[in-house]
């Protein structure tokens, strides 16, 4: 059905001065900012209120795993932006190859996350152990869900890009992926680094 779908003329108009797909992506990013922002604002308030108590809990998060994941996501973002550069040059094959690397790194991120969850739960820090851990699992779980969704969409975009179709989508999914990266850049200090306070 989607094969015969003809996009309306409206989609190709650019009154605001940028392509519709990218404009739509920015609005998605804006709405995601407030979703993650609401959670982070709530966490910061509780963290400040329960300073000493939660600092003890935060000692038990695995700094090395978080650092490794930050590295993985930054690298995947680097590949995503290189894919955008290749797509803009019209090289769909190369863009698809780079996007596949991004997807694989997203998979690595989720594997590290899975290892972390398992070892935390086995050590007795499950989602119900303390409110801190509830926040930890909610925030990283919501973020992990976004990584997963991003990987799936990246897969579709890469499939099209390999055939040289819909190359403008490479930039849009890139913007989304970088946003997911930025969210992790803020979750990392919140849950892992600033544990001694």
């Amino acid at each position, binding site marked *: 059905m989607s094969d015969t779908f003809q996009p309306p003329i409206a989609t190709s108009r650019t009154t605001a001065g940028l392509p519709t797909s990218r404009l739509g992506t920015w609005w998605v990013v804006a709405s995601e900012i407030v979703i993650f922002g609401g959670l982070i604002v709530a966490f910061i308030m509780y963290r400040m209120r329960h300073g000493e108590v939660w600092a003890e809990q935060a000692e038990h998060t695995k700094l090395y795993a978080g650092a490794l994941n930050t590295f993985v996501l*930054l690298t995947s973002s680097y590949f995503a932006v290189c894919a955008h550069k290749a797509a*803009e040059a019209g090289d769909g094959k190369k863009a698809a190859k780079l996007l596949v690397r991004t997807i694989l790194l997203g998979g690595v991120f989720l594997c590290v996350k899975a290892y972390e969850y398992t070892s935390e739960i086995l050590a007795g820090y499950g989602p119900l152990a303390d409110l801190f851990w509830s926040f930890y699992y909610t925030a990283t779980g919501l973020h992990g869900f976004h990584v997963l969704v991003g990987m799936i969409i990246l897969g579709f975009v890469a499939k099209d890009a390999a055939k040289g179709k819909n190359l403008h989508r490479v930039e849009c999914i890139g913007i989304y992926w970088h946003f997911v990266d930025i969210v992790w850049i803020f979750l990392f200090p919140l849950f892992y680094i600033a544990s001694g306070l």
Partner: protein
Amino acid sequence: MNNDKHLSHPDYKKIYVRLLILLAISIWGPIFALQLDNRFLLVSAVLLTAFGIGAIKAGMVAAWFMHLDIELRMIKRLLVICIFFLILLFAGVAPDVLLPEGQNREMDPDYEYPKIDNPSTPEQ
């Protein structure tokens, strides 16, 4: 469709390397800072290295990877507005969550509650 082709791409590899260096600083900074004796210095050092550098990293990704540096002014404003309203949310809620004194109400054992004479329960 892409009617505003970017004229030149910055050197992404250089930016990537810088990001990794900043990542290393933000991991090691707090570890060293925690050995400080002065509580004020410690807190500010941790906050600066963890969140300050985090913000710089986020800014770099947003500016060069998401191309916000050459994006329309309207888009930048939109994102700033979203963040502004989050700060507003924090400012409005923080007094209630962070300053809970005055909420520790206790029952006064000497207080006599007014007597309410219940009418007979209605037929059901």
